[in-house]
């Protein structure tokens, strides 16, 4: 049961990561196109703000998958030398704390996005609303929080097993 949930959550995280990869290609092509058009005196308006906005998508959507692949750098020096059970307990507790952190970030970014909808904040050149990109932070942090929570449960179960 838990295993199938974990598997589908990890698949969703990989899906978000695919969007992140596409966003990398997008900002690369957009920036190059802007540079090329500048040679003809016609730069693409709004490149600067679009690249920044999609930069947020790149990082936010890669958060969860990067954790699944253990890509977030951690100091393994001490904990990896411990026996399996205390190690699982320490890792589980750490993931639980981190899950709370990213849960808070997901929640607060949603509040922030709602505020932005209300105030109607838009970008300077193109007039694109900011809130959808703030929601990408909600999605990314929420997904990471979920992945962390499931991993925390697994490790704590292992660490506390009689």
């Amino acid at each position, binding site marked *: 049961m838990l295993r199938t949930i974990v598997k589908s959550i990890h698949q969703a995280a990989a899906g978000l990561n695919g969007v992140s990869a596409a966003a990398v290609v997008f900002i690369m092509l957009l920036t190059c196109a802007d540079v090329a058009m500048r040679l003809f005196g016609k730069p693409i308006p709004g490149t600067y703000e679009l690249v920044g906005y999609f*930069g947020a998508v790149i*990082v936010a959507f890669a958060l969860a998958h990067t954790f699944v692949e253990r*890509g977030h750098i951690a100091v393994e020096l001490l904990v990896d030398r411990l026996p399996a059970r205390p190690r699982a307990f320490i890792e589980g507790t750490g993931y639980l704390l981190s899950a709370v952190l990213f849960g808070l970030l997901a929640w607060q970014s949603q509040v922030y996005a709602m505020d932005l909808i209300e105030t109607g904040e838009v970008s300077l050149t193109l007039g694109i609303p900011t809130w959808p*990109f703030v929601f990408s932070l909600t999605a990314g942090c929420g997904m990471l929080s979920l992945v962390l929570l499931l991993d925390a449960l697994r490790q704590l179960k292992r660490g506390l097993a009689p």
Partner: protein
Amino acid sequence: MTPTEAGLYGFLILIALMFLKIPVGFAMALVGFGGFAFLVSWDAALQLMTQDFFSVFGSYNLTVIPLFVLMGQVAHHAGISGRLFNAANKFLGHLRGGLAVATIGACAGFSAICGSTSATAATMASVALPEMKKYNYDPALATGVVAAGGSLGILIPPSTIFIIYGILTEQSIGKLFLAGVIPGILMALLFIVTIFIWTWLKPELVTPAPRSTFREKVASLAGVIETFILFAAVMGGLFMGIFTPTEAAAVGAFGTILIALAGRNLTWKGFVQALHETTRVSCMILVIVAGATVFGHFLAVTRIPFDVGDWVRELPLSPNMIMAVIIVIYLLMGCLMDSLAMITLTIPIIYPVITSLGFDPIWFGVIIVVVTEMGVITPPVGINVYVVGGVARDVPLHVIFNGALHMLMAQLATAILLILFPQIALWLPAMMQ
């Protein structure tokens, strides 16, 4: 509890959390958030943290990171490192320790299109180690040279560490990149000198590879042209002020893809892998930057940066001696900590001290990078050694560390020369104006 005390406790808790294997970016955000909530208010801390994360992730200036990472990854998957090594090998391979010298040359070349030490070490390990094994090179020498040579990735531009330092201290990334060029070449030369001395003292460690013909030498040069074009286009555009760093990186990444496609060296699978590596590495870096930003805001409401500044200024030491102490502290921290975490954590405190003592910020950026390079090959946490160990699975880690520590001499010599003659770093950026 005074704010200063809260800051000190914050530091201690942060170090504890990091050693309990919480990812460093997460730990910095946790403590920064908790500390700010404790000193100011929960609501303010929550809002500040969210805005910090969104502004770091959505920063135009920081999109330079995924783009330069992509450039290096595509270069790796397109086999550029192999062609660089082949050319260096044709010219230098027949010397005593020549394959190791060629490895350093190829590392320096690859560093000109890649901004990370571990990526440079990984790609060169897969190319150079089998060749050195074929000629019975001592495993400690072979792996140590690759691990140390890979560290050139952050000194020769582009460089993720210069980018992060430049953004944290509001210094020009273009100038920092320029400042890294001559020290990078100097360090590569000192690595080569180290190899010559090492193999002169212990000739049994290596067997010479055969001399290649003039025709082979000329033919191998074709493999260097692509790197030269990319470096010239990207750095030339940046240094002449045609490109912002993000534009230079985008043009570089796209150019690398086009050159790889033109030479039929890039498969769809390789491209997808490069993209996945890119999102993973960029996400890791930017989460650390975001975490450090949150932690930095907490530090700002403690009085720690001021207290440390006052304390250092009252020390009965000359500025150069203080610099020496700072470098030793960085060396010790670099042994234990990830380089990026170390820099993002210490710069808000150390940087004001450095500038108030009258040191040049660009020069200090180069010093930080050189010290970081030592950190990636020193035990127990030497990321490059682990990367090389991942490729050379038959060589134990302590053997690689042993080999890399021989090469540390060259890095130390570079640092000392930079302190004695700051112009090594500052001459080129001064030409930019």
